[in-house]
């Protein structure tokens, strides 16, 4: 498991290569990259600034990676979340999941993203024409995370 918080950009291909290098057991790699949009509800956004809670953000992501590992058969997970100022078109977050078959890799990537949105201590502020504005949490994101509860154990889920 690799969990990194960083100000600088990441290279998706390099992260996939690092996860799969020298391994013949991985049959599926799913990557999700979240990017900064240049507008929200029709209003232009010059940039996002991401604030985070150092220490807790890493711990919270690691807890969710462990939960994903308990739930699906994963052969590797990488999560990278940027903080600081990010302009439209730039990367914000990367989730890479590796498994022997695609189903587990797809499900775990979606699970991790849904939890990152609602449980990882990050806050987005948007630079709009009228000034900086904190992004409000979306009910749809809470609903997306809630649908993963309760977590079945892997042995039960496999049956």
């Amino acid at each position: 498991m690799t969990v990194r918080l960083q100000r600088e950009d990441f290279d998706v291909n390099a992260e996939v290569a690092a996860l799969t290098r020298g391994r013949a057991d991985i049959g599926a790699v799913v990557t999700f990259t979240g990017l900064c949009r240049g507008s929200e509800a029709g209003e232009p956004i010059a940039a996002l600034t991401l604030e985070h809670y150092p220490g807790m953000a890493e711990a919270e992501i690691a807890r969710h990676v462990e939960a994903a590992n308990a739930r699906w058969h994963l052969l590797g997970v990488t999560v990278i979340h940027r903080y600081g100022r990010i302009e439209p078109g730039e990367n914000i977050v990367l989730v890479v999941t590796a498994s022997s078959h695609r189903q587990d890799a797809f499900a775990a990537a979606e699970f991790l993203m849904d939890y990152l949105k609602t449980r990882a201590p990050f806050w987005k502020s948007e630079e709009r024409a009228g000034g900086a504005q904190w992004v409000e949490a979306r009910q749809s994101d809470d609903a997306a995370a809630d649908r993963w509860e309760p977590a079945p154990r892997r042995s039960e889920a496999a049956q």
Partner: protein
Amino acid sequence: MKILYFAWVRERVGKPEEEIEAPAGVSTVGDLMTWLAGRGEEYAYAFENPRVVRAAIDRTHVKAEAPIAGAREIAFFPPMTGG
């Protein structure tokens, strides 16, 4: 104990962190929010709607009913918007 504030809670309080000593009787996270809200205008503004403010004790999410005894670090912040 150390109190941390993030995002608009930090902006409203006007500082990212501080050391406090909660008086006797302040035993839960909810009590602490009520007590903090009485410390001045900026705190009252930050905690005007305590139900939307989230909390963590020693870097783990907790609810308002959580006891604060033994906590080293308590953080207050809005609902998270990462990812």
